[in-house]
């Protein structure tokens, strides 16, 4: 599953700039990790030292997860397990905990979400990014930061306000025109995480465990209380289709926006205007 190039046709001018090294303020910090870009924003002015501390903390957290679980790295612990050089029983507690969590989600989704790839590879990427976001959020909290948003490749977790008294607002990208948003959602307690899965950007990276047919959904976004639930369910609904969608909305306190193959939408009541 090599990363594909970006889709053409977006309206961003080629000279649009990222400003990763900006100074104090509430603007975005960016960090490159896990093959994507993390955007860190603050809901109120943070001094330069705190911004750097936040960037370092998030970079460290993501670096640690990537080093252990990346299947793009031959020297990651998970790659060693997949090559048979290391037994699961000899693996680090961090890896075994992660595997256990993935298995829990397999059970909760009736096997639709699974870390066991069809080709026999143990692939924990379905939970690793979300766990890294979660831990990075904890790191920001530990730094005394209470108003921030973390966007890792399209999965967003927020805390506090985007400005005093104002909730964070996230757009959900339109899979048919990535320069546009399909809808906007407020991220505030209790639902402060949103994740979106689809097959448009990275190819069919979701391995269907069901009948093997194409997903009825082109894109699925899930708002949840935590980013792991949001991310896992977005993936599971893509793979499991309508049955998993209905099961998810009746089991977890989530909101879902699904884009069908023909571009039409399904939404839970909380996402209606």
């Amino acid at each position, binding site marked *: 599953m090599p990363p594909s*190039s970006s889709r053409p046709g977006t309206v961003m001018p080629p000279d649009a700039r990222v400003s990763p090294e900006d100074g104090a303020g509430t603007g975005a910090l960016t960090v490159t990790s896990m093959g994507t870009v993390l955007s860190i924003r603050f809901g109120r002015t943070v001094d330069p030292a705190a911004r750097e501390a936040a960037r370092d903390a998030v970079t460290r957290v993501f670096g640690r997860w990537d080093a252990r679980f990346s299947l793009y790295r031959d020297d990651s612990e998970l790659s060693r397990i997949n090559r048979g050089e290391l037994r699961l029983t000899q693996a680090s507690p961090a890896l075994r905990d992660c595997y256990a969590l993935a298995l829990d989600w397999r059970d909760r989704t009736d096997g639709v979400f699974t870390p066991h790839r069809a080709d026999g590879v143990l692939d924990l990427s379905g939970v690793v990014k979300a766990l890294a976001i979660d831990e990075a959020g904890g790191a920001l909290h530990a730094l005394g930061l209470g108003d921030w948003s973390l966007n890792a490749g399209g999965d967003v977790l927020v805390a506090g306000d985007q400005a005093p008294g104002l909730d*964070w607002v996230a757009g959900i990208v339109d899979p048919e025109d990535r320069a*546009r948003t399909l809808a906007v959602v407020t991220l505030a307690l209790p639902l402060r995480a949103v994740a979106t899965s689809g097959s448009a950007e990275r190819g069919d990276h979701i391995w269907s465990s069901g009948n093997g047919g194409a997903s009825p959904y082109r894109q699925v976004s899930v708002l949840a209380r935590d980013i792991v639930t949001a991310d896992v369910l977005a993936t599971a609904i893509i793979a499991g289709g309508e049955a998993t969608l209905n099961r998810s909305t009746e089991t977890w306190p989530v909101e879902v926006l699904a884009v069908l193959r023909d571009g039409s939408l399904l939404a839970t009541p909380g996402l209606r205007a």
Partner: protein
Amino acid sequence: MTLAALASVSVVGVGWQLGAQLTASQQTLATSVPAAAIGTAATATGTAATPSAAPSAAPTAAAAAPAAASGTFDGSVVHTRFGPVQVSVTIANGTITEVMALQLTNDGGRSVMISNQAAPILRSEVLAAQSAQVQNVSGATYTTGGYLTSLQAALDAAQF
């Protein structure tokens, strides 16, 4: 309507995911629903989402228990000419305080709460706002290269 309420309230469910345990819990918990609660169910069901769906199922006898029950109880599925119908009632101290309709999907026979079911919606019906009000964009994972042409990069650059 009275029959529907009786049939529904007499059964207690805890959801599809505990299907195997449903039968057992029906038997143990059904008896804890007091007769007083059953009596008010007839009235309450009149406001349920499917008032015209007269059931053909016979009411299940619910044993009268002396203690007033509290909790949320899912009724059994009643097959009507409109399709399967199921209600959930909330009982506080023997009085029904809320009745909610549960709907059944046609495939699989699982109950789906109408209150949070994803339903078709027009693009004009979703919540929308100017991108200037948005700080983050959620989308299928973009690559490092893909980020450069993403809406998120535009927002980050503009520091909205």
